[in-house]
């Protein structure tokens, strides 16, 4: 016997006006089986230690993303529930049955149109305009609120992406790019905590995307142009390591193109920078001009 007995009329009765008027015999059995299926599918989640949310934001403005995400989830969730309810009511209540006749309504009266317009405006305001407003505020106060060009506090990094690694150049003690004490690293970026970090991203070959999930930032590294992005870690991020991922398909080893982001407290960082610059000066090869890549920092 089939596990899913017929719930609908067979094709023979299709032409009758009683079409589709059968009683939903096995809907609950069906639902039961589907729930079981769902449970099996969700089993690994229950057993495993899978993370189902991003790590808490480590940047000063990352929480804005999380909050807006939750706001949108609440708004769209309610909207979707309304849709589901409006779908469920007719499905349960308005089934075809003998003698039942649908309500004859074209919905074309002025009243209907007005109602549609009002609902649209309300939905636009509640869903879209609200989110738009929050987002634009967030963008201007956070993501696009770059530190000024003459900011002493800002720490500047040039990011040069390539297949399949991240090259970082930081200006060293002298604060200038293109000098002997520039610290050049591969797949390792060390930054001070609680200071604005401004990055210039470019690429040697194909498009990459500089993605630091814990800082809630992402920016493409394009060949031929420089993109800016900035973040500032929370003070308590000091001493932690975070991950930099590549978010734009860049070829064979795209998935292996990740780097480490080390955040040091400002004191530790000052020491680190001293040593790193000293090492850089010691290993500087003035003849090797090719290795002196750097560009005028784009503020």
């Amino acid at each position: 016997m089939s596990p899913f007995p017929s719930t609908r009329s067979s094709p023979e009765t299709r032409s009758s006006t009683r079409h589709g008027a059968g009683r939903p015999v096995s809907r609950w059995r069906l639902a039961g089986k589907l729930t079981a299926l769902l449970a099996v599918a969700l089993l690994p989640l229950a057993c495993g230690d899978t993370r189902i949310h991003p790590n808490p934001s480590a940047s000063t403005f990352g929480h804005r993303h999380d909050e807006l995400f939750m706001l949108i989830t609440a708004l769209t969730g309610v909207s979707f529930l309304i849709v589901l309810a409006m779908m469920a009511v007719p499905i349960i209540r308005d089934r075809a049955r003998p003698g039942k006749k649908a309500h004859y309504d074209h919905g074309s009266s002025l009243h209907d149109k007005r109602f549609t317009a009002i609902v649209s405006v309300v939905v636009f305001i509640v869903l879209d305009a609200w989110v738009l407003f929050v987002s634009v505020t967030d963008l201007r106060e956070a993501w696009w609120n770059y530190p000024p060009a003459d900011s002493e506090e800002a720490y500047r990094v040039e990011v040069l992406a390539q297949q399949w690694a991240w090259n970082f150049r930081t200006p060293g003690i002298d604060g200038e790019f293109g000098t002997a004490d520039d610290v050049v690293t591969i797949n390792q970026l060390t930054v001070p905590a609680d200071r604005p970090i401004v990055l210039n991203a470019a690429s040697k070959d194909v498009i990459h995307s500089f993605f630091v999930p814990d800082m809630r930032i992402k920016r493409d590294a394009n060949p031929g142009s420089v993109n800016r992005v900035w973040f500032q870690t929370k003070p308590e991020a000091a001493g932690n390591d975070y991950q930099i991922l590549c978010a734009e398909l860049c070829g064979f080893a795209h998935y292996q193109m990740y780097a480490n982001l080390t955040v040091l407290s400002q004191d530790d960082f000052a020491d680190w920078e001293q040593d790193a610059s000293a090492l850089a000066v010691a290993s500087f090869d003035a003849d090797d001009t090719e290795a002196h890549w750097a560009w005028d920092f784009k503020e």
Partner: protein
Amino acid sequence: MIKATLALFAATAFATLPSGAANEEEDKSALLPPVHGVSPDNPHSRPPRDVPLVIFEDTQLLAADADDGHDEEDDYAPILFERLQAQFPDRFTWNEDEEHWVDARGEYTWDDENECYWQTVTAERLTRGRQDYVQLCASCHGFDGDGYGRSGQALRPPPRDFRQGLFKFTKVDSEKLPEDDALVQLVQEGLNGTPMLPWDIHENRIRDIVVYIKSLSLPELLDEDGEIEEDATGWRDPYGQIGVMVAADDDPWAGRETEAIAAGEAYYHNYQCYNCHPGYATTARMNELGGKDPSYTYRDGITLPKVVEDSSYEVLGYAVSIIPPDFTWHSMRRGETVADVYKTIAAGVGGAGMPTWKGSVPDEEIWAISYYVRHLTDTYKDKSATRMQFMRDVKAGH
């Protein structure tokens, strides 16, 4: 409706005009400015066009460097054929009269003149290797295997030029050519701190790539008079010697790690590793460890690595400088465990200042140095406060 939309669009466009720092105009200044020190005829900028993907001819590569099976101890032939026989029983027979192995399939052939074995690699296999090379390796190492890939520019250390047959960190005696397994392992494990990734593909494909890379060695070039203009390199050179990976299975310090580290510190400074790598002790202590006169002084910047120029390896016409790692700062390329460090020290680093230490220094001492080096990395690398304290003391003592 359209009008309304456009009006709304225009309105927001003005309303959202950001001011000052928030304005990210895409003007020409956003383009990558010219970068210092790059000539327009840079070999990295060759357009990747008309890249061949198919190889039509079989090739012969040096398979083993001798010979009659009872000559020198470190000949590779006995090792190779023992492995091959285990893999393909009944395929190889020993020719008693001429004293060499005979391959029933004819893949491995004996060269009587040069006293070596050649391996014939089919065009089909080279093509597979070539195609995988193009996808995986060419972006840095270049489509011709010369190290001038588009993504390889300005990388330090530079990507290898495979035509020279020089490799680093293969864990094979740095004077010799690495055996296949060594190269396969290197490709699988990658080199820490460089874009040489641990390549995560099936071993069959890696072996194809390795064979193809070996085939990039230059055959000897003759000039117009038939004189040898350029010697054959790598696996094209009949006089090449192939080495096996250093074994690291009898750790003499097992269970005595603390002792090993202490001994290692002495050996490290005794063997003057600080000539290139940093010294990790005060002058007084280094003199004590090395048994030197208390008035003995060391090179300037002893707490920093000393850059050396690798004259055997040139990029863009000049020797590149090599930075010997500071073990409290840099990551070791292939030194995850003490045994790994031991292998690298024992084998030396081909093409760099690091010689082959095995043979010139007792094994036990190399092991001790490995323990010490690994200890330095474990204790101080990426632990800024601890390291700062340690190095400050060292610096103060010079």
